[in-house]
């Protein structure tokens, strides 16, 4: 079994309203030394294939279903191979 992690984040220059609201409000609550805030989404998949095939599938899932290339980027990592 291969465990694969896909991390989706916004491309640089795309404003994430959720992150900027969080950032702003942390400042209001006194955490005012935070320079920047980003929010990402992580998916974990357990594949029964070998690592190579699994990576290909994960890439296809990310590109076709999980992201819009206009605003998002993704990073795929193998986090376990048992």
């Amino acid at each position: 079994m291969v465990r694969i992690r896909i991390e989706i984040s916004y491309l640089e220059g795309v404003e994430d309203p959720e992150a900027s609201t969080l950032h702003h409000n942390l400042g209001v609550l006194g955490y005012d030394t935070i320079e920047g805030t980003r929010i990402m989404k992580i998916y974990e998949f357990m594949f029964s294939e070998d690592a190579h095939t699994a990576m290909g599938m994960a890439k296809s899932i990310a590109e076709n279903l999980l992201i819009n290339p206009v605003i998002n980027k993704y990073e795929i990592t193998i986090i376990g191979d048992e």
Partner: protein
Amino acid sequence: MMNKVHKESFYGTLKISDLDQISLLKLSEGMGLSLNIEEMIRLRHYFSKMGREPTETELQAMGQAWSEHCCYKSSKVYLKKYLGGLKTDYTVLAMEDDAGIVKIEGETNYALKMESHNHPSAIEPYGGAATGVGGILRDILCMGAQPIAVIDSLYLGDGKSEKKHGMLNTKFLVNRVVGGIRDYGNRVGIPTVAGHLYFGNEFEGVPLVNAGCVGIVKDKDIRRSRVGGNDEILILAGGKTGRDGIHGVNFASRTLVSDVAENRKAVQLGNPIIKEPLIHAILEANSAGLISGMKDLGGGGLSSAAGEMCLAGGSGGEIHLDKVFLKESNMAPWEIWISESQERMLLSAHEKDVEKISEIMERWDIDHSVIGKSVSGKRMKLYFEDKIVMDLPLEFLTSGPVYAKPYFIGKDEIKHWIQPPDPDNFNSDLEQFLSDYNNSSKFNVIRQYDFTVRGDTVIKPIVGIPNRETHSDGAVMRVSDDGYYGIGITSGCNISAMKEDPYLGTIFSLSRSYTNLISLGCNPHSVVDALNFGNPDKMNIMSQFVESVKAIGDFCRKTILPVVAGNVSFYNELEGNDIPPTPNILLTGIISDYRRVLTPEFKGENNAILVAGSSSGNLAGSFYASKRGYAGGSLDKIDLEELLQLKERVLNCNEHSLLESAHDISTGGLSVAILEMSFGSGIGFRLDLSGYSDERFSNKIYSESGNRIIMEVREENVEKVLKIFGEMEISRIGATVGKKAEIWNDAQKLIDLEISHLRNIWEHGLDGLI
């Protein structure tokens, strides 16, 4: 490259005086200006006459100001010709500022506007649709009005054909568009109450997202989109400025290419969490009389807003671009000037009021900064770190080219009568027809929207008894805390009819909106159009546009309705395929006492069912014909005289409380209309159409021709209703009874189905898509 900034280039100039045509075009493309060769030559000529070369900021500002989106270069001539002067005595502002303003009564007015956000929604549906809502809210807000209702008309692919290369998957797109509207509208606290949904493969890869808004404003609070004179302070309030949305207008002014990565720079995401307090802050400062003029930053950003506000106020402007709050450091002055970042408003104020405005903004936690002032002389001067980066006369900036692009009107005089053969079984034909995306209930979409927040929604998009709801003909919004005035709102466009004939199809669409409002008991009051067309460089597309605009003019002159605002979106094409002409109409109506408003669901058994208005039984332009694959039929002319009579009589009957329910016959014809009335309460009906006309049965139940309204009338009131209708065509076709849909024709029971069974099909029609 956009992100590489060499500071010395801010102040230097670009040599264009010795560029030949090819190099000029290359420059336009390289800088993303989207200007054509004639326009580039005009620029070269202007600067050589001035004896200098332009700065980078100047060229970018020109590309922006002369874009189709900002200066309406292809449409202006025809809009002026056909829609100019369409005002009534109750029109306060028409086609002048960011939104139209119309008087309701006394000192109360409503502001309204509708705009397209098609191109951004095609590549980033969630952000595109959300910022469409955000933009239209600001258009209403900048008139000084409190937004009370959001309207969304969507024309989307149906996912039944193959996905076009490089474009987004239809299901993804539909869900994300609806999600964008839901998340923005619901979070900003303004209800999404009306709209239109059409699914067809014509819109695959080229979705249309038209967002509208209605607001309420008292006479004293109306603000114009202009500075009050010289030496006024310009304040930029709301969101920070970033690189998002750069070249959005240039991007909207050309054809989409099916490589999403190419379109990246023009995408923006909205932030309703900033917008909500911004609305409060602006309205508070405005009602305190601190703001002299304001404008929202939409397409064209600061460049459009500041330029137009100063010019309209008879002034020029001096703006310090380094005073603008930025999301990212190292932005070039031109990027700041034309950025289309969301949630920003430009205000003008007297110097003495600036501090008070600041206090209000701070209380609402809104970023704001003084960025410049209005000055005498109609020039726009831009500074960056005290150095001039642009100095141009406003009149030149706004003197965008005007094209009377060629078109032809070659009318086919031969009438084509289409006649799809009768189905073997009318029952199963109806079941199948009802399950189509365009006939089925739109609950899966509507139920995602908050349509009651603020508590002003008198008639919701969903009406009827609990668990048996149906669609209303439009929304009705309460106007104020005193009195019972209501505004009826409806929006849409009949694509099947538009495909057959852009002129008659537009009249058809307008009359459908008109009958929607009558069915609510509202008196049609004002029109806004969002005109969505293909590539205007093609003669046939320009013809569609001209005919459609002419039809709006003719319709409104006849029915005495003002056209108070509008928007044009061209270049809705993909790989050479243009969308069908889509003039989306936003029509509002007034009811002086909303307690008398009508809804479509049947109210009781054994009431008479009457159909008012005439029909030729023609199937041309009907959704039924289009669905069966019968195109090319000739549409009937709509009798506008009859439409006016219909309005007068239906409203008269309603004034006398003679009607239980009413619903207009529109997409799907009589069959779908009467079923929708039945679905709202579960009460069935028995109709006998033998004497209704001498047409075939399928024409009787599926034709959409004419102006017709179905009315449910108590037995004791039938005579009174017939008397009010007098000479006008009205037929009694049946009665409300039982729990079945029964339709007889020439002594044969051709439709015999359980209402609950049909409703189930209808309610779940969209389940496979959203």
